[in-house]
């Protein structure tokens, strides 16, 4: 037994800068965010969709983009969800390390928020409790929750309800280091080409490069919540994002997959360190709604 170190008792008093957050506040916010994400397009996506309607080359493509504009207007004015697939709730919780939660467990609070949001918001319950027995849980829980601990005393919540038309077309490729940047480009183009009309284009393409098998998938998922129009702060990755967007739009898939010059609105790439023997690449595809709402408590 090791006796060299006696851990200090957890510090809990206010002098030590611990901030208390009631988990009821998490329930309330998750509920509101589930509803908001499903009825209103985020400002970044709204800008990108309007711009696409102006630049699309195909006549049918233009018609579809204008229908999607009308769809957003109806969703907003008549409180109808933008899409009937109101998604499985993906929740990112970035918790400041100086936060102390009071109330129920944080995971239970998130699920309670999802339950209330999907019920009160007239959102479709699309979750089955077991992947093979497939019985609907009838309240859209459980959510998929990704926790991270960050400096500070805030709690940042992102709710990104994910539809499965596009989720089903997502891929993980375990490339070899020798495949390099060309391999990454081919992986992304392959995934998008194969997704075609199934993923409800124009799509947003989230890419994770590096890490491990599961890390790159999470990097890709996080890339989808980066606002469309913002680029990687790594110069060569920013270049790759721009180049891939151009190439994807050159695939001809177009709005609804019915041909055209707008296949994707953005390619967002996140990278991470990886092993000397590997080059994992994940491509997470999202439709033109790409729901994401972020709040800080």
């Amino acid at each position: 037994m090791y006796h060299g170190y006696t851990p200090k008792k957890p510090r809990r008093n206010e002098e030590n800068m611990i901030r208390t957050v009631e988990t009821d506040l998490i329930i309330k916010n998750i509920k509101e965010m589930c509803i908001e994400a499903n009825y209103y397009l985020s400002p970044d996506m709204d800008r990108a969709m309007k711009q696409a309607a102006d630049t699309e080359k195909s006549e049918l493509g233009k018609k579809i983009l204008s229908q999607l504009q009308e769809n957003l207007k109806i969703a907003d004015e008549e409180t109808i969800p933008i899409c009937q697939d109101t998604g499985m709730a993906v929740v990112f919780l970035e918790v400041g390390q100086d936060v102390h939660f009071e109330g129920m467990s944080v995971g239970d609070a998130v699920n309670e928020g999802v339950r209330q949001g999907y019920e009160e918001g007239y959102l479709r319950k699309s979750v089955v409790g077991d992947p093979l027995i497939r019985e609907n849980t009838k309240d859209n829980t459980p959510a998929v929750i990704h926790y991270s601990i960050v400096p500070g005393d805030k709690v940042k919540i992102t709710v990104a309800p994910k539809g499965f038309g596009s989720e089903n077309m997502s891929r993980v490729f375990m490339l070899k280091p020798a495949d390099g940047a060309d391999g990454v480009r081919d992986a992304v183009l392959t995934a998008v080409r194969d997704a075609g009309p199934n993923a409800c284009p124009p799509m947003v393409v989230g890419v994770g490069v590096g890490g491990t098998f599961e890390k790159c998938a999470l990097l890709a998922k996080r890339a989808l919540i980066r606002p469309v129009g913002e680029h990687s702060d790594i110069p060569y990755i920013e270049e790759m994002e721009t180049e891939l967007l151009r190439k994807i739009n050159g695939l001809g898939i177009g709005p609804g997959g019915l041909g055209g010059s707008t296949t994707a609105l953005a390619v967002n790439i996140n990278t991470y360190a990886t092993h000397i023997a590997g080059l994992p690449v994940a491509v997470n595809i999202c439709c033109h709604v790409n729901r994401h709402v972020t709040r800080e408590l």
Partner: protein
Amino acid sequence: MRGRMDKHITTPITAQVTRDLKAGDYVYITGTVYVARDAAHKRMIEALGRQEELPIDIKDAAIYYMGPSPAREGRPIGSAGPTTASRMDKYAPVLLDLGEKAMIGKGKRTREVIDAIIRNQAVYFAAVGGAGALLSKCITKSEIVCYEDLGAEAIRKIEVENFPVIVVIDSEGNNLYETAVREFAVTETVGEVR
């Protein structure tokens, strides 16, 4: 290929109707349409396996692959856009051989489904994916026919008025997803990734 046309059709969708529809046509459907997706298709095929009758009148029927969001008070239905059709590929040829004439969904179909479309002079329409609010405005009535326990996946009978769709695969097997994409493709061939 002749130019794309706007057409109005009413259900039931007979071979006479499908004969005039060509890939790329923009079509407005009015009439009765059945709604079914994954779980309902599975049950229908299982029922056939037990030599039972189908719960719907399949002859010249149109099936919309869709699972709506809940309806608010006073409205027939919630958001109601198409779901990915490929998940129904396993079941569709059987239903087409029994008389189903039109499928409404989004996304690619297998060769087996395309062959069944040609064999039965049927048609595959795409509705615009992610336009569930807009499409719900063309649905005037909705009732659950069976499999109510499946919730959003229950079989429904809906009445539609000028419901907008695009012919993707016509009765001759022409496939708009292939021809239209070629028309706008400029990116060189994608390298193969395994």
